[in-house]
């Protein structure tokens, strides 16, 4: 089986992505990835779940949560509606905008395009878990300081995408910074601030975190 990844922002600019797949199918590609994940998971393998609620266990920000959810509930809805972790936002609900970005096993993922049952057995990190209460993660500090946010609705998603990106590419060039977060949309047009924040955060994070 060819190894396919969850939709990550890494190296994926939305426009380039649309060019290769055709605009209409992008949501399909995302759910395809999620479906494959389902097969890959021992817990879900060959079992029919639902239609009623099923018990699931999620590891979020280092804590274990036992929930009962219908199988059709997305990770985003589970985080927002069941765990009151509302930092990840619902905007398009179909893998287009990146506003719901969380980290799943260290990789950026659109929480709207992943089922909660598929997120079992994985380490999920949301914006709330990025830094202890009252402290700012260096990336968040870089976003604040470069004013890489206006209305702020897209910002948690950008910050999480930035974390996933910098964890893999700690030394981005300016040109890379422009493309780095291409899977996240901002209507306030903070892209230029975001580019500066990515570079600034990279500098701040030198020497480990």
């Amino acid at each position, binding site marked *: 089986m060819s190894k396919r990844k969850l939709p990550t922002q890494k190296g994926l600019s939305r*426009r380039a992505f649309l060019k290769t797949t055709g605009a209409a199918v992008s949501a399909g590609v995302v759910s395809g990835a999620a479906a494959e994940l389902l097969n890959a998971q021992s817990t879900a393998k060959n079992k029919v779940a639902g239609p009623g609620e099923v018990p699931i266990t999620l590891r979020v920000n280092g804590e274990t949560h036992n929930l009962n959810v219908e199988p059709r509930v997305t990770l985003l809805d589970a985080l927002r509606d069941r765990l009151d972790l509302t*930092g990840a936002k619902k905007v398009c609900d*179909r893998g287009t905008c990146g506003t719901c970005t969380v980290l799943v096993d260290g990789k950026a993922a659109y929480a709207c395009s992943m089922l909660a049952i598929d997120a079992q057995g994985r380490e999920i990190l949301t914006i709330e878990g990025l830094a202890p209460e009252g402290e*700012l993660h260096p990336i968040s500090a870089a*976003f604040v300081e470069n*004013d890489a946010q206006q209305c702020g*609705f897209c910002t*948690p998603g950008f910050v999480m995408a930035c974390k996933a990106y910098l964890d893999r590419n700690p030394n981005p060039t300016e040109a890379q910074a422009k493309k780095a977060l291409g899977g996240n949309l*901002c209507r306030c047009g903070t892209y230029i601030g975001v580019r500066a924040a990515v570079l600034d955060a990279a500098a701040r994070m030198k020497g480990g975190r």
Partner: protein
Amino acid sequence: MHPEPPLIGQAVPRKEGRDKVTGRARYVDDLVFPGMMYGATVRSPVARGRIRAIHFDENIPWQEFTVVTAQDIPGENCVALILHDQPCLAAEIVNHPEEPVVLLGHPDKHLLEEARRAVRLETEPLPAVFTIEDSLAKKEIIWGEDNVFKSFLVEKGDVDSAWARAEIVVEGEYETGAQEQLYIEPNGMIAVANPDEGVTVWGSMQCPYYVHKALVPLFGLSKDKVRVIQAETGGGFGGKEEYPSMIAAHAALLAWKAGRPVKLIYDRAEDMAATTKRHPSRTRHRTGVTRDGKLVALEIDFVIDGGAYCTLSPVVLSRGTIHAAGPYECPNVRIRSRAVATNAPPHGAFRGFGAPQSVFALERHFDQVAKACGLAPDEFRRRNFVHAGGTLAVSQVIHENVDLPQLMERAFAESDYHAKRARFARENRDARVKKGIGFAAFLHGAGFTGSGEEYLASVVAVEATAEGRVRVLAASTEIGQGANTVFTQIAADTLGLDPELIDIAPPDTAAVPNSGPTVASRTTMIVGKLVESAALGLKQTLVSSGLPGERGGPEGRPCTSEEFQRACAEYIRKHGALRATCQYAPPPGIKWDDEKYQGDAYGAYAWAVYVAEVSVDTVTYEIRVDDFVAVQEVGKVIHPVLATGQIEGGVAQGIGYALYENVVWREGRMVNAQMTNYIMPTSADVPPIRVFFEENPYPFGPGGAKGIGELPMDGPAPAIVNAIEQATGASITRIPVTPEVLMEALEGVHA
């Protein structure tokens, strides 16, 4: 002289920056109320028709649902705004696709969605109108007597007799498409409503008092029984000026009937298809000039498509009309403008508010006029720019010390305009990817038009606590533009206080006075000035009761926060409360004639020259903006980083408007209502945007500031399309310039 205040002009931290970046800021969909249920809207499937019946599929347990129709409205069935023509829920006739007809409430989101799909509206279709031309031609009368919501006529000099003196006459017609605001946070409201307590709503909005104004007649309640509170709001750009009133009304009607809180959040497709967009427009120009390129006569016919109901169209039309002749001096001008009805969802406010449409037409047209005169586009502009003491089309004498040639020189120097223009002309001949550089010069009036601000009579209050903290009370909303930060700077400077001591009260109609809507680039210039004046009033009260010295402290130094606190505590002990209020009064000498549409249309203008550099791939028809220079004069810049962010954001939206954002209509319905097929700019589409301010303090703005928010929306589209013309020779007259539009235009050039 008063010393230069220390905070105005500085990049202080954004007030709510930490809460937003950590995800702690609570937007409406992040709020949960005990016992809350969800709401959904059943909408018209047709553009125009008579409602025959509403069928409820029997497979749904309807007894569990709250169902609201027009009959359940306790008061007047309308969304009160300018005219009361838009129903809150259609009762007999629907006038556009997606018009709300039935509301459903249920605690289970998934079941609610199934139920929404299980309601079928049986309608008898009526003939509908979908284009400006059909509406003007009265192909069918769908609104009033003639389909016209509003018209204006601006006359200056004598156009009819001026044509005889024109040596060259150039005509042109220009079109702009609809544009979706696409604020990233979808619209949403939560309502608690019952006959005992009245109606309270929380939600995403720009204008709490507009929502308040709409809810009062809808429920037939007294004003004090209606309360509107803004939640943190994820962008608006005009899109949350009026439509939130509709959603608040719906949530409140459901809550009123259900007896429990109701949350009504739109999903993306619903938000895109059902709520307002920028008005499409069509502009005809006829311009007379002398052989050496001096304007003799300007005749402009400007029409916008208002959609099915009047809503804000008259005021959008007004701004578009006044901006239609730009920052130029012409002795003879006639501008005729109309807003007409079509059977599409009502078009509404979007950053720029009519000006981007008419400015696009003018700045594209003036490149054609320059060509006809054998002049470079910049030389033609230079010969016709308005100067201090000159008059605009509405016969407003410019008292500001405006220097447009200087702004243009700066923009050209920063963008290397002349050298690039020459080089591109040389190199394009054999290139597949052709490059071009173009510009637009424009102005944007700050605040409400004409006597609008006087009519609004906005109020701001500033109060102090015994602990020495200061609260600014205003209904102006923070929607990402930085209002809270700017108000803090203004109040802190006026009082000579640490900004940490300033709080901005959350916009709540039960707690803050009506400082007017958060629109029209008025928040900093108009409301900020009221903050300044109210803070000054507070300080004077303290000084006259014993807090010594200018700037609030002994010997003219700023008072320490301890001294300030002591003075506040002392005053409050003696008098009970410490509060100062200020109401808007127009600057001296402002005169506006609403009948003739002449006079001081705006107290002040922002002035700008934007330069865009593009590459056009003549094989794939792909257009890229490679560089962008934005030079503007906006009075004193209060916060350089926030101001720069406003310009960058507006330019990004302007790039989308020019090239990508194409609303596809089918019988009045937006058919590409998803972010997958309505394409807005990503990071990869936005070039470096280089922003420069020339400062020229405006005496009646706070610290010298003018308005800024809408300005950057006006210039990018004409600058980009002018650049495309330099690159390709194709004279494109409509936006968005999608690859299809470009292909057609290039075939025209080669044919």
